[in-house]
């Protein structure tokens, strides 16, 4: 197990507003980290710093080559679904192939090999029949799978997902996390979610982000711990039946 990247003393934000302060985090191969925290706590900003979309005010993100020495396209990224223009004239297959952008040349047309790779992935996700559809014709769950295909088609070392369970029904959510579990044998995964419920079933460790980052080395977390992490969100416990625990209150 080797280090993929190390975030060292990172502070970042927008304009003169600091959203993240003095963040430290190491991500290793086979990690499965759930990033939780309140809205506006800086979860998405952290992902964008890792992706290089936002330059931190201070600190650094360092990447480490793995033993095979392939350093290109380390990260597969699944953005929040609502950031995309669904009326854009592009087909499902084209979206998936765009995940190969940095691996393939700018000029070359897609070889049959790459097209088959895209079709295989779509098949695995059970949406092969949709490959020629325009993205605007898909449901939220289908779209989410298309973006997952795009994120993993280049076989990245690290997969990062931003709120993958928005717009997705509960049944599909379970399928989705099962898929992630399978992928985790091949790549490290970071998943951002404001919904702690389902996420903690699947992740190995938890990071609470609310301006600061508190790393929690297991997937069991208590209300007290969250409070000490300064992370005001709803809490869950693990049991035979999935359920939500409410605060003790008088009727």
């Amino acid at each position, binding site marked *: 197990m080797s280090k993929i990247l190390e975030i060292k003393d990172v502070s970042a934000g927008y*304009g003169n507003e600091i959203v993240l302060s003095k963040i430290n985090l190491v991500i290793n191969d086979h990690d499965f980290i759930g990033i939780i925290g309140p809205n506006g706590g800086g979860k998405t900003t952290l992902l964008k710093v890792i*992706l*290089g*979309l936002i330059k931190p005010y201070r600190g650094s993100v360092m990447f480490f080559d793995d033993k095979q020495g392939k350093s290109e*396209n380390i*990260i597969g*990224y699944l*953005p929040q679904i609502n*950031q*995309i*223009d669904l009326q*854009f*004239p*592009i*087909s499902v297959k*084209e*979206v998936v192939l*765009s995940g190969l*952008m*940095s691996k393939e040349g*700018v*000029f070359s*047309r*897609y070889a049959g090999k790459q097209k088959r790779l895209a079709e295989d992935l779509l098949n695995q996700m059970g949406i092969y029949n949709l490959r020629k559809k*325009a993205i*605007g*014709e898909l449901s939220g769950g289908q779209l989410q799978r298309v973006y997952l295909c*795009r994120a993993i088609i280049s076989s990245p070392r690290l997969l990062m997902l931003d709120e993958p369970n928005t717009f997705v029904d509960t049944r599909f959510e379970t399928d989705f996390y099962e898929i992630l579990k399978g992928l985790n044998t091949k790549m490290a995964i970071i998943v951002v979610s404001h919904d702690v419920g389902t996420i903690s079933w699947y992740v190995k460790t938890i990071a609470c982000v609310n301006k600061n980052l508190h790393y929690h080395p297991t997937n069991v977390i208590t209300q007290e711990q969250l409070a000490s992490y300064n992370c005001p969100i709803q809490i869950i416990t693990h049991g035979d039946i999935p359920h939500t625990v409410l605060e003790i209150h008088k009727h």
Partner: protein
Amino acid sequence: MIELFSELLNYRFFTNALLASLFTSINCGIIGSYIVSRRLVFISGGITHASFGGIGIGYFFGFNPIVSAAIFAVLSALGIEFIAKKAEIREDSLIGIFWSFGMALGIIFIFLAPGYAPNLMGYLFGSLLTVSPADISLMIALTVIVAVFFIFFYKVILFISFDQEYAKTHKFPVQIVNYILISLVALTIVMSIKVAGIILVISLLTIPQTIANLFTKSFKNIIFLSVIIAFLGAFTGLLLSYIYNIPSGASIIMSLVFAFIIVKLFSILVNYIKVKRIVST
């Protein structure tokens, strides 16, 4: 009809107009598909009107207004892109500023230019019948540049237009591609002024694409269909303008708008019948 057409082909001005329509249709078909897909219609309108400043400067200093309009349009386009990114001004407000600034500058320079401004109406409303061979060679040159760029970089243009942020995560020079494309938009607009005029040129960049989008949802097919529709519209408008002796720019746009209405109504009807059939079975 065929007699009329063969008669018209004998006129030099008509064959020139036809060639200009052809190359403008190719340019506008390609660039317009990019504009419509990326929802850049408003910025394109801004660039169009800003280019009037360049025309005024050309008049005043006595060189070809199309050349100064091209320079002015490209600088406005790059200016809008650059300032909106860096200065945290809302892009649409900035477009409004450039839009009116260019027009105002043009009006002042034309007013100050000595003597009467000939062809002014031509720049505002188009004058397809006065296209010169020099204009046509400029159009051909631009068509070659635009076509080559889109053929070689089709994948990149498609992916960057679809999801800029994702393209950035692949370390793509997204901003450079944006600058190149917005410059091509500006040049296409200026080269199309002869055909439809500043006031009407936006129609060539939006109506054919909107019609094409009713038939297909593939970027590539929208481009091909738009080129064909734009040329059919220009050709029909040209004939109507000759037959009824009306301004060509306006008659081209009228042809396109009517085509759009007919196709849209037809597609509504087809959908209605389809739904009926599904419900009844």
